[in-house]
């Protein structure tokens, strides 16, 4: 079972990222659970959302304490939130950033594998808005073998309708541009 934690700020689409990941996994015949951190929703405040993906039925309702994958939508969260909290030793942190791996490690103390992508720029260039949630899904799939990139197309199509194509393009560009640093 793979456990994922998304960090974002209220309104950036972290919950949608989690939902889309679960929907994509379920469409591939897998089992999945997506859930937000339950409670009041506040725009701009640090928020988290969670996903479990497994080949077997998932029988736990615990919160996720030791994720395999952490995805950070907002670069300003580094240094505010301990995004690598509980991350498994062989886990990966997927970051929206313009900084180098060295700078990130120095600033955040993260020693785990990093997957870096300038998702804000990709989102602006492909969609015209700095909403990076679907872009970062492409980066996450590049850094892991969770699902094939094409698994996102169905759920993105269903969720976004006529603007789905731009979201798909953004995730594909992120998939190509993501740099993985062990």
């Amino acid at each position, binding site marked *: 079972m793979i456990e994922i934690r998304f960090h974002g700020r209220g309104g950036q689409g972290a919950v949608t990222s*989690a*939902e889309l990941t*679960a*929907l994509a*996994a*379920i*469409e591939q015949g897998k*089992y*999945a*659970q*997506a*859930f*937000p951190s*339950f*409670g*009041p929703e506040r725009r701009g405040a640090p928020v988290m959302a969670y996903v479990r993906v497994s080949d077997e039925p*998932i*029988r*736990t*309702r*615990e*919160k996720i304490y030791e994720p395999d994958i952490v995805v950070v939508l907002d670069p300003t969260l580094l240094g505010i939130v301990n995004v690598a909290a509980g991350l498994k030793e062989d886990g990966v942190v997927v970051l929206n950033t313009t900084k180098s791996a060295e700078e990130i490690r120095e600033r955040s103390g993260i020693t785990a594998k990093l997957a870096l992508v300038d998702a804000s720029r990709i989102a602006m260039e492909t969609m015209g808005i700095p909403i990076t949630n679907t872009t970062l899904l492409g980066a996450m799939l590049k850094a892991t073998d969770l699902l094939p990139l094409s698994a996102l197309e169905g*759920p993105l199509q269903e969720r976004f309708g006529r603007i789905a194509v731009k979201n798909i393009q953004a995730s594909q560009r992120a998939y190509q541009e993501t740099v993985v640093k062990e």
Partner: protein
Amino acid sequence: MAKRVGIEVSIAVSEAVKLANVDVVAAYPITPQTHIVEHLAELVADGHLDAEFIPVESEHSAMSTCCGSSAAGARTYTATSSQGQALMLEICYIAPALRLPIVMTVANRSLSGPISIWNDHSDMMMSRDTGWIQTVAENGQEAFDLTLHAFRVAEDSRVLLPVIINLDGFTLTHVIEPIEILDQKEVDRYLPPYQPQMRLDPEDPVSIGPVGMPEVYTEAKKAQDEAIKGSKEVILEAWQEFGDLFGRYYKPVETYRTDGAETLLVTMGSLSETAMTAVDHMRAKGKDVGLVRIRLFRPFPFEEFLAAVEGAKQIAVMDRALCLNGAGGPLAIEVKAALYDEPERPYIWNYVAGLAGRDVTIENFVEMADGVEAAAADGLRGDYTMINVRE
């Protein structure tokens, strides 16, 4: 053909209500029930569900409206949580007394105070004695299936009682997971149209709900008590038929790896899944622990429960509500009462856990199993303690 989809559990519940082809939905939104009612409002507004959606000004009005529409012969649904249910409670006692087959989802949430929107079973326990049939869902699929089952049972002419489907707020309502959604033809085979036995009709007037003078009140209550006791047979029959049609069989009490188990955990609701994983962990380490999950809370399935715990030396009962200064949590009290007349009784320790969304982990269930064994070995007088509490 049924279709396996990734869907939020709340939305799946609304889809089940739509497939049940309800006539009236009267509801007031409250967290964490909101998505269910919002989606139903949308289905009605978009013409996908031919029903009256009555946006009322309070839950008291919601249940009053449901009583009216059900008495007029309409298939009637509502949903609520916590404080909302507290507000409608006055009318919740009246619906079963009038034998009105209303179906209600309760997205379980703690009762104030302190004010809390998070999940526990205090609202379920608040309505324990209202006379509603109550089932408890463990996951999204069950929430969907039990919704259809609820209409089938409630409207059966041998039952005619309202049914609550309990599902854990947030922990289930706000989770996306794979659920097999039945199609209309399949649901129609299981759930026939509602045939009211008696209804409010200006052409053929009757009185429903007159005063119960001391000369008749006791007899009315005796009849109501018999009705809910007698409903169990129909509840089982409706589950059997559901299984025969769709391959998912449900029982009022489910067991998990109880064979040869000296220690049993007893749970209700979605945390039973976490408990199953905890049992797997303990079994892997050679510990003889099993799990008993209660799916039917009212009428309480005494016979099935006793059969499920037979042979156990000690039982850890998890409650997700307090019965302040009582003999334990409400479920433990029920379990103890069920066992009192047995010649051989297991040792019981009661754990109150998961109040207002406090996480209950796999490790916590291991703690409960270890705890009841230690308390039994030490010969402590059975009591209740809280898990995960800072003192």
